[in-house]
């Protein structure tokens, strides 16, 4: 009975726990649709100070500035792409956690497939070599006679 109570309370507390983000209440927009867009975009933007975090996650002062700036751009009527382009113009593609597919990033995007293809070619050569080097084993005449003898109906019970 008491244990059930404790379980219930713990369960309720767990339900309250939400992932922690760096976005502060005073940064958030009152328009929830715009705020949702801002959150979505800021999760795709790299914090240029602490580079493996998004500006959505980061506590760095500059990340705060960029979050506020992003929301200002959205309030001013920018589309998601325009808001991102605004920052790319200042910090380069570096701020995009998902870099665009263009000449400078071909190697980045296609590299894994190149390596896979190269591996396939090497494996192909290897297998072709191996099948050439180990020919089908041939039975000698004596072995064949022995085998035939063994396979005679009267010897197989």
């Amino acid at each position, binding site marked *: 009975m008491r244990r059930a109570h404790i379980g219930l309370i713990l369960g309720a507390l767990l339900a309250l726990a939400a992932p922690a983000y760096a976005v502060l209440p005073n940064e958030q927009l009152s328009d929830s649709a715009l705020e949702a867009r801002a959150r979505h975009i800021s999760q795709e933007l790299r914090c*240029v*100070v602490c*580079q493996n975090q998004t500006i959505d996650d980061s506590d760095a*002062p*500059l990340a705060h*500035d*960029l979050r506020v*700036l992003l929301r200002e751009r959205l309030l001013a009527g920018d589309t998601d792409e325009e808001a991102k382009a605004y920052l790319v*113009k*200042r*910090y*380069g593609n*570096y701020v995009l956690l998902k870099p665009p597919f263009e000449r400078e990033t071909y190697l980045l995007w296609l590299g894994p497939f190149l390596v896979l293809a*190269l591996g396939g070619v*090497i494996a192909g*050569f*290897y297998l072709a*070599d191996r099948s050439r080097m180990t020919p089908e084993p041939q039975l000698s005449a004596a072995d064949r006679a022995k085998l035939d003898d063994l396979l005679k109906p009267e010897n197989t019970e």
Partner: protein
Amino acid sequence: MNRAIALVPAGLFVALVATFYFALFRDPSKIPSVLIDKPLPAFDLPGVEAGVAGLRSSDIRGEPVLLNVFGSWCISCVAEHPMLLELQRRGVVIDGIDWRDEAINGAKWLDQNGNPYARVGNDRTGRTGIDLGVTGAPETFVVDAHGRVRYKHIGPIEPDDWTNTIEPLMRKLRSES
């Protein structure tokens, strides 16, 4: 033929090791500037003290200038400061942007540490810094006589950076203008 193919994985391995080796010495916090060879973005910043002129982007013209981004909160800037004072003594024109800082703190900091700047603008909101693609202080831009950004140095300017990179560039820019 077989031998050659057997060596391919070993070759790839050596290439990978070489890549990782060089990556060890590359500082990923140094993000290349998109402003190189582009005009300085327009700004008009107030001074750090009442009655003292600030810094406008149009002021930076006519001769090669170092544009240094600092802040009274910035510890590496204190370390860099004697170098800037020395450059000022040698006649280098340095303009400063007091970034993400209250003007009064910037003014106090310059009083205490000395002022190597020809002009200082206070960028309290940090927006000019963002327009310049600043990721931290100190950062220093080399701006040519036409107001174009030619180089960006991230972090404090060490004597080696000056003699090996920035000074030769400034000399070249001066001969161009």
